[in-house]
């Protein structure tokens, strides 16, 4: 995608493109025009709300009232993947990001081994939840945009800047059924960005259908002064308990630890073994 842009290659869309800000006439809006024909070189930084992807909006349903909301979508005959547990917290040794690996579509497990935590660059890791395709594509778009920023301005965009950029890019899709809830985990900061428009900085975030269970475990034992092993065990335990109780989370747990030196990934662990160990421990306690 970035290569396309630098070579000034554009697929010329023959239909009305989305997002559009003008009224419901047939002229292509200013934004998409500028996007299609202008050479985006090293000139002034482009508007952050440009979306480097054009969307086809079906013209089946002509609305007599204009612009109410952008929710013209055709009824889909298939379910999309949703449902997850992800969490992130800060402690004295950096930031821990953990997530399960199940992608469910309706009642079916579409994939038992998804990567919900993706590194964007050496010091930023993003955990995704919501609709799988949306998260995957928006992460790709975000990675592309901050890489382009780095190439143009010869310095990296800060985590707050990245969060703001992402929030502004998602804003045109507010009200549609794009469902993206990302937690940007930098080495000293956690920011939660959501397609509804929320952008929050905090010390501890858990997102997804299993998040209440994860919050319960984290709130009990989390403190600033944990050492690295304790923090990793805590994150793992929180995801494990959430996968046990939430039907839409499960399979394995992924864990990333971000410090000032960069991110380190812990090997993916199958929670089936953990469950059996837990049962054994309970069995011993009952016996005593």
């Amino acid at each position, binding site marked *: 995608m970035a290569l396309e842009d630098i070579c000034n290659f554009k697929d010329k869309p023959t239909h009305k493109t989305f997002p559009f800000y003008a009224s419901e006439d047939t002229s292509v809006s200013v934004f998409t025009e500028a996007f299609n024909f202008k050479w985006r070189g090293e000139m002034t930084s482009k508007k952050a709300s440009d979306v480097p992807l054009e969307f086809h909006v079906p013209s089946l349903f002509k609305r007599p009232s204009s612009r109410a909301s952008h929710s013209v979508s055709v009824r889909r005959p298939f379910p999309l993947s949703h449902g997850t547990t992800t969490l992130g917290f800060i402690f004295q040794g950096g930031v821990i990001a953990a997530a399960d690996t199940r992608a469910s579509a309706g009642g079916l497990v579409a994939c038992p081994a998804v990567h919900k935590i993706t590194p964007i660059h050496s010091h930023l890791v993003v955990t995704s939840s919501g609709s*799988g395709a949306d998260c995957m594509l928006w992460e790709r778009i975000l990675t592309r945009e901050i890489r382009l920023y780095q190439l143009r301005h010869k310095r990296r965009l800060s985590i707050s800047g990245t969060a703001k950029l992402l929030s502004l890019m998602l804003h045109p899709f507010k009200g549609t059924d794009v469902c993206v809830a990302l937690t940007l985990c930098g080495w000293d900061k956690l920011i939660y960005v959501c397609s509804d428009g929320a952008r929050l900085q905090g010390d501890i975030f858990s997102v997804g259908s299993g998040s209440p269970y994860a919050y319960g475990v984290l709130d009990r034992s989390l403190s600033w002064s944990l050492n690295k092993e304790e923090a990793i065990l805590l994150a793992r335990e929180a995801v494990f308990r959430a996968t046990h109780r939430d039907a839409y989370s499960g399979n394995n747990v992924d864990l990333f630890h971000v410090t000032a030196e960069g991110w380190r990934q812990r090997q993916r662990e199958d929670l089936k073994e953990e469950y059996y160990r837990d049962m054994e421990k309970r069995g011993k306690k009952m016996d005593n």
Partner: protein
Amino acid sequence: MFVSQNFGESGKMKEYHYAGPTEHRFSPYAFNGGTVLAVAGEDFAIVASDTRLSEGYSIHSRDSPKCYKLTDTTVLGCSGFHGDCLTLTKIIDARLKMYKHSNNKTMTSGAIAAMLSTILYSRRFFPYYVYNIIGGLDEQGKGAVYSFDPVGSYQRDTYKAGGSASAMLQPLLDNQIGFKNMEGVEHVPLTKDKAVQLVKDVFVSAAERDVYTGDALRICIVTKEGIEEQNIPLRKD
């Protein structure tokens, strides 16, 4: 297409009972059935599909395979709505040619997968109703399978089943190829002949239990020598 209102989610027929006056809206989608499967081995990849094209209670064609050869090392299997499958393959062919002309090399399997993801997502608000699976060889010559959902989320796998019988076939593949849910079994690497035999057996099972799968099986075996095709008959009822 005119009977599409009788379909609920995933193309299965809704039960017939009088529910009062209902408004019939035009649905741009139809469900044409079919199952696709792909398996990646050490130096080969197999993409297989049945060849039945159905709609509601009718069969439109018994010879409509769902594997499309993209390059010498990549095969795409797509099932779902046949109209969208045809358009999608046309678009992919055009983009492959454009890439070849501007970059003077053929697209690799990984690149095709990434491109297909963006093509599917550009239709986020009016999706292609297609379940895609790409099978081929990566740059190192190892087998690669990429599976997609209708809006472009994708993942590299070792094996994947998609389409109407996918929920029946996927657990069977998990067990036979992934050795899941078995304790104390030796993980033997999959040879090409064993994989082909497994695919045939698995489709015979699917044809037994899924009404939209049957008629014939088309297998495309991708190796560094090229793409070999086999046709095996399945149940026609």
